């Protein structure tokens, strides 16, 4: 960063960061508050974290959230990688950009629209199949796979582009069948992209509220939904504690993504 930065731009930067982080800092601070007060800090304690851990509903919601995040991000990573490979192989420019745009639309689509449309789809298809109470874990997982899929595709595709396309030919030349050459050569080359896509999918699934809210049904609660239902009753600091925990989990995951990207860039620089 330039050392010549003048005072006004420093103030501006300070303000930007203040407004970005003030709410989170307040949240974290009050999660350690001894009393339930939202204005007075009466003492430091882990009381609310303890309370949180004793709350069976919350623990259950954490379990659900993790289960959904793992299953949906793994599925989305496999599907997304396969899709990216297919899109990358397309020779027809128009078809390719058409497919890419179709993939991107769910990302730009308002989540609430995606949520409602998925709900409608599930309701419609369960009626068609004659299933009662169709909403539950499986619909949550299907919904999550649906909305994280484009992110996986988008993080794998650039790696495929960067890859020397003669690599898989070279592998075949040396005796690999096309399938073997994919697993032995192509997959290791695009692995950083796949990992980034996976973590991104995991993160997105973890903190999704809007879509989950529509497709979860009455019996399955994810953490964000649990949080939302807690706000409906009485706002207690254990909610701050929970939010703080979610914030740190996200922070760690995002840092992991950044770290991996930075390492990839560094490696590229070394190549030059």
């Amino acid at each position, binding site marked *: 960063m330039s050392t010549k930065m003048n005072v006004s731009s420093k103030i501006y930067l300070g303000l930007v960061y203040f407004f970005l982080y003030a709410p989170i800092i307040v949240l974290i601070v009050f999660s350690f508050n001894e009393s339930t007060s939202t204005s007075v800090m009466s003492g430091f304690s882990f009381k609310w974290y303890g309370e949180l851990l004793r709350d069976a509903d919350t623990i259950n919601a954490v379990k659900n959230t993790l289960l959904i995040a793992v299953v949906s991000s793994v599925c989305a990573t496999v599907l997304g990688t396969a899709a990216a490979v297919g899109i990358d192989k397309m020779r027809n420019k128009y078809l390719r950009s058409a497919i890419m745009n179709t993939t991107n639309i769910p990302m730009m689509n308002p989540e609430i629209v995606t949520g409602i449309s998925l709900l409608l789809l599930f309701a419609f298809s369960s009626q068609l199949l004659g299933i009662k109470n169709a909403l539950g874990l499986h619909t949550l997982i299907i919904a999550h796979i649906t909305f994280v899929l484009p992110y996986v595709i988008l993080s794998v595709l650039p790696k495929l582009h960067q890859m*020397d396309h*003669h*690599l898989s*030919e*070279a*592998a*075949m*030349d*040396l*005796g*690999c*069948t096309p399938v*073997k050459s994919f697993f032995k*050569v192509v997959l*290791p*080359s695009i*692995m950083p992209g796949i990992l980034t896509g996976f973590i991104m999918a995991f993160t997105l699934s973890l903190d999704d509220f809007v879509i989950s809210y529509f497709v979860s049904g009455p019996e399955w609660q994810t953490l964000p939904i649990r949080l939302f239902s807690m706000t409906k009753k009485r706002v207690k600091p254990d909610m701050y504690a929970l939010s703080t925990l979610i914030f740190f989990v996200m922070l760690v995951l995002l840092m992991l993504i950044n770290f991996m990207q930075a390492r990839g860039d560094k*490696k590229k620089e*070394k*190549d030059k």
Partner: protein
Amino acid sequence: MEKDIIIDLKNIDVSYGENKILDNISLYIRDKEFITLLGPSGCGKTTTLRVIAGFTQPDCGDVIFNGKKINDLPPYKRQVNTIFQKYALFPHLNVFENIAFGLRLKKKSDKEIKERVAEMLELVNLKGFSKRNIDSLSGGQQQRVAIARALANDPKVLLLDEPLAALDLKLRKDMQVELKNIQQKLGITFIFVTHDQEEALSMSDTVVVMDNGVIQQIGTPQDIYNEPKNAFVADFIGESNILDVVMKEDFRARFSGHTFQCLDKGFGTGEAVDVVIRPEDIVVTTPDKGMISGTVTSVTFKGVHYEIIVDIRGFKWMIQSIHEQQVGDEIGLVIEPDSIHIMKKSIYSGKFGDYSSFSDEIDHLSDIEEEE
């Protein structure tokens, strides 16, 4: 059919959409031969290589390997290995694992693999590099690893797709010698693709000159240089003065207002033909002693010789001479009968004119774009 023919291409056609990339290519390659496919970018030389490797399916025609038709044999079952233009080394594997790649697929024992890789590293002068990362190697070293990786599989034929294009001049010259040595030491067939005519002439047993998906000429480097079949070959290989000529009779050709003795016959009396005269074959003398004479329009010092452009009746000749001339001087030229090579007219006649628009830069522009 000769016994020692290893690869035989018969009437190969390849097109991508509307574009005809290869047009009726027929070519046989002898065992243990160093053969070069030479031509400008987009002439179909790389595609020919890909047909042999199995990456491109010909629309029609046969690929025969050791007497067997292998059109439908996938690349991984062919006894040929390729060195790619940008080497295509596997970045996630180290030097050892790159070279061992093919051997591991063949399920060789660890001991065998170790020995073979060591042998290959020795062959390409990379002893002690086995644990190195691919990214940490220079272009020349990567090139060597690519050669080792391909040769470790003990191929019958090695295909090289402009392997030296990415190296600088000095390194390229060294690698030329080294590749030739490796080829002779191992006694396997090399099929080498290049757009560099000097490289082709200095390394090959046989040169195949291609343009527009058509083979223009096949021959030894000497044949190609001394007896080009048409104006394209003459122009592409080395410098040449190509003139329109009328054959007076056998052994007598008339151009530039003089009837020259030559060694060619079998053309009809009065037939229009092309003649090629290499700049180094022209002897400079005084105007009165010369068969033809003209004015010097440009002189460039090239180190070994001077490149002199002479205007004779509106045609700009290039002459390479060790004696300096002054621009504006009147000089005479003597051309011996064995310096004159007569060619039949072809579609290329008239396309390659004189040196009136000659510039070094244009001549040295060479693109190493891939043809795909």
